[in-house]
């Protein structure tokens, strides 16, 4: 007689054994009452489980579980959702558009910060130069003044810092912020101990509002102001007191003509 496995007995009890094997199992069970009792127990278990739960299958199915009704409800919900989705897309689009056009309003860096950063950067680049520190030297200060004044579209005098111990080295033209005319002029001064100070001048910002700022930037001191005609940033690495004296002198001389009927610029 062939081997009969537990799985075969279970399959027999579950009625899942193919016909040919079934006969073999039946013969085996006839000769083995213990195994027959096991199989009977399995069948009683299954019967009992069916007795417990089978009645549920005969209950009337609640309306909410009718597939046709569910499908209709889902279709309705989906079309509603499309409505919401469309509305959401429109709102997102409006938000993006508004955000795009509001960019300038939301630009976190104020113009003065940009100008100061540019001035400090230009200072750091050119004070380190010896032969090419300036584009036009102080010996041609007439030309320097008229050239830079033309380029900046404003009268630019060369401040005299002799009282503070500084003499003009010269100046150069630099690219600048589009908001402030797109160009900047840099004037460089030097004292007896070769300390250098630069003055970074641009045309006025669009708002032309007066502003005043003293900032420390990458180890350099920057004194910035703006009025209706120009913006100006004085940059140097001098001790604070000396720096304030230089900046104050530059401020007085470059704003002289702006406040009433003072003298015109020197230069």
């Amino acid at each position, binding site marked *: 007689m062939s081997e009969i496995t537990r799985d075969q007995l279970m399959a027999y009890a579950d009625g899942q054994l193919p016909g040919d094997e079934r006969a073999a199992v039946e013969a085996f069970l006839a000769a083995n009452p*213990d195994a027959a009792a096991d199989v009977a127990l399995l069948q009683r*278990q299954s019967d009992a489980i069916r007795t417990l*739960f089978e009645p549920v299958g005969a209950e009337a*199915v609640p309306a909410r*579980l009718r597939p046709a009704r569910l499908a209709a409800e889902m279709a309705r919900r989906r079309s509603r959702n499309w409505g919401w989705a469309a509305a959401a897309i429109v709102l997102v689009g409006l938000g993006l558009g508004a955000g795009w056009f509001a960019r300038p309003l939301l630009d976190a860096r104020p113009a003065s910060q940009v100008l100061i950063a540019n001035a400090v950067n230009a200072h750091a680049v050119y004070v380190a130069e010896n032969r090419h520190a300036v584009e036009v030297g102080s010996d041609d200060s007439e030309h320097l003044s008229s050239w830079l004044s033309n380029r900046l579209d404003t009268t630019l005098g060369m401040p005299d810092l002799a009282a503070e111990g500084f003499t003009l080295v010269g100046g150069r033209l630099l690219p600048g912020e589009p908001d402030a005319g797109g160009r900047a002029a840099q004037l460089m001064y030097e004292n007896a101990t070769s300390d250098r100070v630069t003055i970074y001048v641009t045309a006025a910002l669009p708002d032309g509002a007066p502003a005043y700022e003293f900032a420390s930037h990458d180890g350099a001191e920057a004194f910035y102001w703006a009025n209706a005609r120009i913006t100006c940033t004085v940059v140097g690495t001098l001790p604070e007191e000396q720096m304030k004296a230089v900046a104050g002198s530059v401020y007085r001389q470059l704003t002289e003509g702006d406040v009433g009927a003072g003298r015109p610029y020197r230069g």
Partner: protein
Amino acid sequence: MNDFLDQLETCVPALRRYARALTRNADLADDLVQDCLERAISRRGLFRPTGPVRAWLFTILLNLHRNALRASRRRGETVDIDTVPELSTPAPQPGHIALAELARAIETLPPEQKEALLLVTLEGIPYAEAAGIIGIPLGTLMSRLGRARAALRALTGSPAEPHLRTVK
């Protein structure tokens, strides 16, 4: 489409029965079946209409049930007071299995044994199909069924019954 819905409809009683046996809670079971049907309807495009819709539905139902089980284990389980079986008296006669005792014993089975046992005994689903629904090899299904039934026998206490031996 309507043919598909009709196919679903013929499976609903079996799904409800299986869900009720799994959850022992009529409302939870019907929620499960509703979720299962909605999922089936929304994914009917993914279902090849030639195959047996029943196995597919049971697979969905089982997955939803397992997800719910995992979620409730995280939340801490709540038990409907009506579903807690009463303490039963011992089986009145050898060989008779007290139903309440059996119901309680099924509750104590590990979920993977319970789902296999109910698919085969309650729903009469062929072994191969049940293995496919659960997503396990046939041999694993057989051993789960064997362990589930041995556990039930131990729990429903039929000491007079001879134990199943390997009879190779």
